[in-house]
C-alpha cells in the first residue's frame, strides 16, 4: 500500500472512532449508556442494524464465495424479511412496553430469573466466541496479504473498538455505524464500477452476465429438497427465517440497536429498511464476486489466491512441483481466455448452434484449468498438511490490491476495518450490557443493592473486549470464516429463539418447564451436530427452536402445578 492509502485508511478508521468518542463525551447515566440516548431516527437504526450484521467477513468472504460457487449463498437471507416483520410486529412492541434494556430482561418478566440467566448465558457464550472470529477474520487475511504481524493487527483492531465502545456506550456504537456504512457503500460501489471498467473493451456488462450465466454462477435459486445441500430456497426460507428471527429478535447486539429508537415507529421503519434492502445488498456483493470470476476469465489469475502462502512454499522444499503447476495453469488460462473470447464474439452472431459450441468449448477449457488448480491445492497440502487450501477469502483482496488505483486501495481496506469495527463494537456493547444488566445487576438487586453504575458497565464492556481479543488470538482453526460464524450461531440461536417463542405465544408454559426444555434442546442440538452432522447447519435453528417448544409443552403437561409462574401476567 502507498502512503496515500495509509492516510485514507487511518483518517477514515480513526476519524470515525474519534467522532464517536467526541459526540458522547460528558456525563452519562447508566440507562443512556446501556440503552442509548433514544434520540435515534429510523435511518440511523436501519444503518446500524445493517452494519451490525455485515462484518468484515461479509466483504472479504462473500465475493470469494460467489467466485467459487456462484450466487446461491443469497438464499441464506430469504427468511430475513419475514423474520423482521415478526420482530417488528410482535417482539419490538413488547420490549418497548416493558422498557427493557436487554432482550433477556423480558424473560425475567415473563418467567423467572433462572430462565433470564439461561437466555443471557447462552447469548454470552455464543456471542463471546463469535466476536473473537469477527476480529480475527479480517486480521488473518490482511496480515497475510500485507505482511503485517497477525497478533498486532488483532490487538490494534480490538483496541480501537474497545476504546470508543467503552467510552461512548450504545450511542457511540449507533453514531459511528452510520458513518462506517457510508464508507462501506462508497468503497463497494467504487470497486464495482472499476471492476466493470477493467473488463476487456469488447466485453459489455451484458456479455459479462452471459459468461457468468454460462458457467452457472448466476443460479441464485435452488429448488432441491435435498437436506444435505447447504443452500436451497427451502433451507433459506425456513432455516434462514428461524436464524434471522433469533438473531434480530433475541440477540442483544441487534435488540440494542433498535431499542435505541426515538419511538416505536422509528424502530419499525429501521427494521423494514433492512427487510427491503438486506437481500439486494447481499445480492450486489455476490454479483461483485461473480463478476470477479468473469474478470479473471480475461485476465491472468493466480493459481492460488493466497499468494503469500503460495510463494513461501514455492521457495521451500518441493517448490519445483508447484512452479510446474503454476506454468501449466498459466498455459491453460491462455487457452481458456481464447475460448471465452470466442464465445463472446460468437454470441453476437445470433446462431444458437455456434454459440452453444463456443460455450461448451469455454466450459471444457475451464474444467481443465480448474483441474490444475485443484492439483495445485492438493500438492500444497501434501507439502504442508497444516496449510489452509481454501483461498476464496483472498480473491477480492487480490483484485483490490492489483487492480484498484492508489487511494482507492486505502478506501477498500477502510471498508474492511469499518465493517469489522461496526460489528465488534455492537457485539461488545451487547455483551457488556447483558453482563451488567442481566448477571451483575440481578446479583446486586438480590443482595439489596442499587442499580449498577456506568463504571460497572464500562468495565464489563472492556472485559468482553479483552475476551474477544483473546479468542481472536487463538482462533486459527476455522477453514471458512463466514460459515464458522453462521454455524456457531445456528447451534445456539434455535434454542434461544425457542425460549422467546414460548414466552410470547405459549402463555400456559412456566419457568421450570421452559428452563429444563431449553437445556435438553441445546444438548440435543450439540449432540446431533457433533455426533451426526448430517444436515445443513441452517436446519439446526429450526431443530433447536422446535425441540425447545415441544419439550416445554411436554414438561408443562407433566409438571403443571410446579411450572406455572406468576410474572407472566405482568409481561402481557
Amino acid at each position, binding site marked *: 500500500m502507498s502512503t496515500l492509502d495509509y492516510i485514507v485508511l487511518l483518517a477514515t478508521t480513526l476519524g470515525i472512532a474519534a467522532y464517536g468518542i467526541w459526540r458522547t463525551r460528558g456525563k452519562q447515566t447508566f440507562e443512556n449508556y446501556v440503552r442509548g440516548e433514544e434520540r435515534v431516527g429510523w435511518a440511523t437504526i436501519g444503518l446500524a442494524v445493517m452494519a451490525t450484521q455485515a462484518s468484515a467477513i461479509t466483504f472479504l468472504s462473500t465475493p470469494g464465495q460467489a467466485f467459487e460457487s456462484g450466487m446461491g449463498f443469497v438464499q441464506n437471507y430469504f427468511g430475513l424479511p419475514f423474520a423482521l416483520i415478526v420482530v417488528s410486529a410482535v417482539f419490538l412492541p413488547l420490549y418497548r412496553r416493558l422498557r427493557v434494556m436487554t432482550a433477556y430482561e423480558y424473560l425475567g418478566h415473563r418467567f423467572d*430469573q433462572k430462565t433470564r440467566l439461561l437466555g443471557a448465558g447462552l447469548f454470552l457464550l455464543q456471542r463471546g466466541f463469535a466476536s473473537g472470529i469477527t476480529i480475527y477474520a479480517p486480521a488473518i487475511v490482511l496480515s497475510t496479504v500485507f505482511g503485517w504481524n497477525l497478533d498486532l493487527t488483532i490487538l490494534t483492531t480490538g483496541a480501537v473498538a474497545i476504546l470508543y465502545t467503552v467510552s461512548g456506550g450504545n450511542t457511540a456504537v449507533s453514531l459511528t455505524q452510520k458513518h462506517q456504512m457510508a464508507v462501506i457503500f462508497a468503497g463497494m460501489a467504487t470497486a464495482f464500477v472499476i471492476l466493470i471498467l477493467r473488463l476487456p473493451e469488447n466485453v459489455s456488462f451484458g456479455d459479462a452476465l452471459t459468461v457468468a450465466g454460462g458457467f452457472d454462477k448466476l443460479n441464485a435459486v435452488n429448488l432441491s429438497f435435498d437436506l444435505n445441500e447447504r443452500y436451497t430456497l427451502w433451507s433459506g426460507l425456513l432455516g434462514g427465517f428461524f436464524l434471522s428471527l433469533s438473531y434480530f429478535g433475541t440477540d442483544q447486539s441487534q435488540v440494542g440497536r433498535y431499542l435505541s429508537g426515538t419511538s*416505536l415507529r422509528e424502530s419499525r421503519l429501521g427494521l423494514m429498511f433492512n427487510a*427491503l434492502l438486506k437481500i439486494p445488498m447481499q445480492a450486489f456483493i455476490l454479483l461483485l464476486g461473480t463478476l470477479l470470476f468473469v474478470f479473471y476469465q480475461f485476465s491472468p489469475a493466480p493459481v492460488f489466491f493466497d499468494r503469500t502462502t503460495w510463494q513461501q512454499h514455492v521457495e521451500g522444499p518441493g517448490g519445483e512441483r508447484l512452479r510446474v503447476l503454476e506454468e501449466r495453469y498459466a498455459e491453460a488460462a491462455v487457452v481458456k481466455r481464447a475460448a471465452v473470447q470466442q464465445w463472446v464474439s460468437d454470441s453476437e452472431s445470433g446462431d444458437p448452434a455456434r454459440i452453444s459450441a463456443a460455450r461448451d468449448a469455454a466450459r471444457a477449457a475451464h474444467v481443465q484449468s480448474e483441474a490444475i488448480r485443484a492439483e495445485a491445492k492438493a500438492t500444497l497440502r501434501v507439502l504442508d498438511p497444516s496449510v489452509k487450501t481454501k483461498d476464496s477469502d483472498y480473491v477480492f483482496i487480490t483484485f483490490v490490491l492489483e487492480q484498484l488505483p492508489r487511494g482507492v486501495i486505502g478506501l477498500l481496506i477502510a471498508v474492511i476495518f469499518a465493517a469489522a469495527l461496526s460489528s465488534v463494537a455492537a457485539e461488545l456493547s451487547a455483551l457488556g450490557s447483558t453482563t451488567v444488566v442481566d448477571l451483575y445487576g440481578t446479583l446486586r438487586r438480590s443482595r439489596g443493592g442499587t442499580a449498577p453504575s456506568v463504571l460497572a458497565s464500562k468495565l464489563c464492556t472492556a472485559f468482553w473486549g479483552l475476551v474477544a481479543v483473546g479468542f481472536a488470538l487463538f482462533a486459527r482453526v476455522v477453514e471458512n470464516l463466514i460459515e464458522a460464524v453462521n454455524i456457531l450461531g445456528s447451534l445456539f440461536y434455535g434454542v434461544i429463539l425457542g425460549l422467546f417463542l414460548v414466552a410470547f405465544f405459549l402463555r400456559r408454559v412456566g419457568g421450570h418447564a421452559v428452563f429444563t426444555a431449553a437445556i435438553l434442546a441445546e444438548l440435543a442440538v450439540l449432540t446431533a451436530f457433533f455426533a451426526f452432522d448430517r444436515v445443513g447447519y441452517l436446519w439446526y435453528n429450526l431443530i433447536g427452536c422446535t425441540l425447545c417448544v415441544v419439550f416445554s409443552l411436554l414438561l408443562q403437561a407433566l409438571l403443571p402445578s410446579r411450572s406455572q409462574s406468576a410474572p407472566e401476567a405482568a409481561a402481557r
Partner: protein
Amino acid sequence: MKPSLSPAPTPPPDSSRNEEAPAVPGLRSWGRVYAAVVIGFLIGLVLLALLPRVVS
C-alpha cells in the same frame, strides 16, 4: 414481582392507547408496509430465479 432493573411496565408513548387494541399493536396500520415488503421480496425472488435464463 420479580426484581428488575427497569421501571414497572408502562404502555409505550407512541403505540395505541386504545383499551381494545389488538394483541399485536399497530398490526393493522403497519399491515400495508409488511405486505409491501413481502411483495418486494417475491418480485426480487422471481427476478433472481429468472436471471440465468434472461442472460443465456
